[in-house]
């Protein structure tokens, strides 16, 4: 039996931080995609992802497994290698999109003209070190990060309250259904946290859907609040900004702390670190399961350096980064994750026997 390393609350905080990552670069493309349309879509996508997690977790438990990696090995080494490689692909894309998204924001909005390559490479190295430190350290860091986010949003709301114009918020009617559906599927496809959670369940004390659901419900709540705040304060100005949440915080001022966009920056860096480190940790686990003789430190170094080189290459030109983003913002990661999970469950049920779970270390 693998030792449980993470408490339920830090695990939920980890999921929370991973989920709010994309909120910080939320951008409604136009009035028909903003406000209540976004809120409805993200709420629905969050609830569906909880449902999916419940179904997948139920299937895992039916197979008698405490985590997804355990299922991979029930049909033999070849099948296990195939699954691990597929998981590695999803995790690689998610980790890269995390770091490159963070780097893109920093070098576009905050420090225009700063080197995107060095920013992405440095961020990836730091995330790799976080992964090497272990998932317990990363998940314990997620708790204060979540608290800073919540406190920061409260302070920002106080600072921007005088700009609130309720007239800018309208309820999406029937004519907004195509946009809501589009946003719903985009939000659902961005969700690789179900896979992340199922990879880490054997490390979580009292793991179950409730842990995932708490993280998702918490992130959804703040998605709703943040989008509402951006809608009623910036109004149509939000549609012409690349990072409207950042713009809102730049406009929020309190006499003591003046501009509050520093909060966005601080939270963003911390959240990107937590998310990147979590995905890299799972990547190290995949590599070690593919090559059982590899030491943890060597696997971590290999993954860290490899991903840093990849980030450096992709950030060398905007075209390469955009190609990855366009691929990763589609259905590919989500469908691949779902396919891996279902395939391994079916294979495990077909195998019909329990095997010793592998040590993840």
């Amino acid at each position: 039996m693998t030792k449980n390393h993470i408490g339920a609350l830090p695990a939920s905080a980890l999921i929370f931080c991973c989920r709010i990552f994309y909120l910080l670069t939320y951008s409604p493309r136009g009035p028909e995609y903003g406000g209540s349309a976004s809120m409805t879509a993200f709420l629905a996508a969050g609830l569906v992802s909880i449902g999916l997690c419940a179904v997948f977790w139920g299937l895992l438990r039916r197979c008698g497994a405490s985590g997804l990696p355990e299922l991979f090995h029930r049909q033999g080494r070849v099948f296990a290698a195939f699954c691990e490689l597929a998981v590695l692909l999803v995790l690689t894309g998610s980790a890269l999109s995390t770091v490159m998204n963070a780097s893109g924001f920093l070098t576009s909005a905050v420090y225009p003209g700063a080197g995107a390559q060095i920013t992405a490479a440095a961020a990836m190295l730091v995330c790799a070190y976080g992964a090497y430190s272990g998932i317990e350290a990363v998940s314990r860091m997620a708790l204060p990060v979540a608290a800073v986010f919540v406190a920061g949003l409260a302070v920002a709301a106080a600072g921007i309250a005088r700009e609130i114009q309720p007239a800018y918020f309208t309820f999406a009617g029937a004519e907004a259904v195509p946009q809501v559906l589009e946003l719903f599927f985009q939000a659902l496809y961005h969700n690789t946290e179900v896979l992340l959670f199922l990879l880490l369940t054997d490390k979580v004390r009292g793991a179950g859907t409730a842990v995932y659901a708490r993280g998702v419900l918490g992130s959804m709540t703040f998605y709703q609040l943040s989008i509402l705040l951006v809608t009623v304060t910036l109004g149509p100005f939000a549609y012409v900004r690349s990072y409207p949440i950042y713009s809102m915080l730049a406009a929020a001022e309190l006499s003591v702390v003046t501009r509050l966009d520093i909060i966005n920056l601080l939270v963003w860096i911390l959240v990107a670190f937590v998310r990147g480190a979590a995905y890299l940790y799972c990547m190290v686990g995949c590599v070690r399961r593919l090559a059982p003789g590899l030491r943890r430190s060597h696997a971590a170094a290999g993954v860290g350096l490899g991903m840093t080189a990849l980030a450096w290459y992709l950030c060398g030109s905007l075209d390469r980064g955009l190609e990855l983003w366009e691929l990763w913002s589609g259905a590919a990661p989500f469908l691949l994750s779902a396919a891996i999970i279902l395939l391994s469950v079916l294979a495990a049920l077909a195998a019909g026997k329990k095997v010793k779970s592998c040590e993840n270390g």
Partner: protein
Amino acid sequence: MRKWLILMAAGALSVLLTGCMGAVPIDQRMLVQAVGIDWQEGQYQVTLQIFSPARKEGESAGQEVCSAAGEDLAECMRGIRLETGQELFLGNCRLVILSEPAASERTAEVVDYLLSDHELRPGTPLYLTEGEAAELLESPELPAEQLSEMMRSAAEAGLCPDSTLLTVVRSLESLGSTAALGRIEAGEAGGVQASGAVLLGPVGTAELTPEQWRGVSYFSGDSRQLEYTLDYKGGKLYTNIAPVQSRLTGGENPGELAFYLSVECTIQEYSGGTLNWDSAEVASVRAVAEQAVRRELEQGFAALRTAGADVICALETMEKFQPDFCRGRTPEAIFGSLVLRPEVQVNITALGAGAQASA
């Protein structure tokens, strides 16, 4: 040994990645206090009032002015940088003044340029002037800080809007495509005159009187306390009125805009003698105050409707509450046909020390 290696690596990263390499010493930065933008004969003129720690003869203590002309704003800023050899820092800018031609004819370009600078706060005050912005900023008696404070006081007194880059851009992007800006003009006695104006696009601007602007300001939900002088029983009743709650919705009938406003009123002085402050008197004063506020609301709204300037989100409100009325009509037609139904509730909360009661 391993610990020392890690510490050295951490130290090296801290030194190399802190971003100090591109730092500009403060004495090589121009701390811009105010920006003035004029548009004349197909050219921009940008005037910057900058903080100067060293006094120079003939200039305001602590201020310097520099300007440059060019075909676009970036060229003007570049010209100033080349002339002075210093980097501009707009993070401390207290206000931006646009001349009327720059604001009305080059709105998109000016606003886009101001927004593109990430140092310039979205909350930076943005004002209009009928004359030249350069003239205002070059005046040694009007440093940026004083200009900014004067306009803020005028806005708090309800004489002009508290316009910032954010409020102007947000308003321009709204359905009304207009914006309200504070107008600042140099006064004869060396001070400034503040009023409100609405930007109408290439056709220019329309001015609102302070009374009209005060009526309009109620729609913004601003909770500033305003001084009101009411004619009452042959005397003057000096009051403070503070909006508490406001709500703009669609009215019961098509084309009606309903506005509910609740204010708190404190009576300071009555110059017509003494009053018996019983419930009947208070009710009578309340009725007079309600009438005065309603009149200003209606005058302000009428002024906006005459100018065709929706700066109060009336169009968004009608789209939300009366979409059938808006369907098939242009924004101009909708706004021009709106009828305002104000409902004003005055709550007299206190009598000031000067409100004498009869025995």
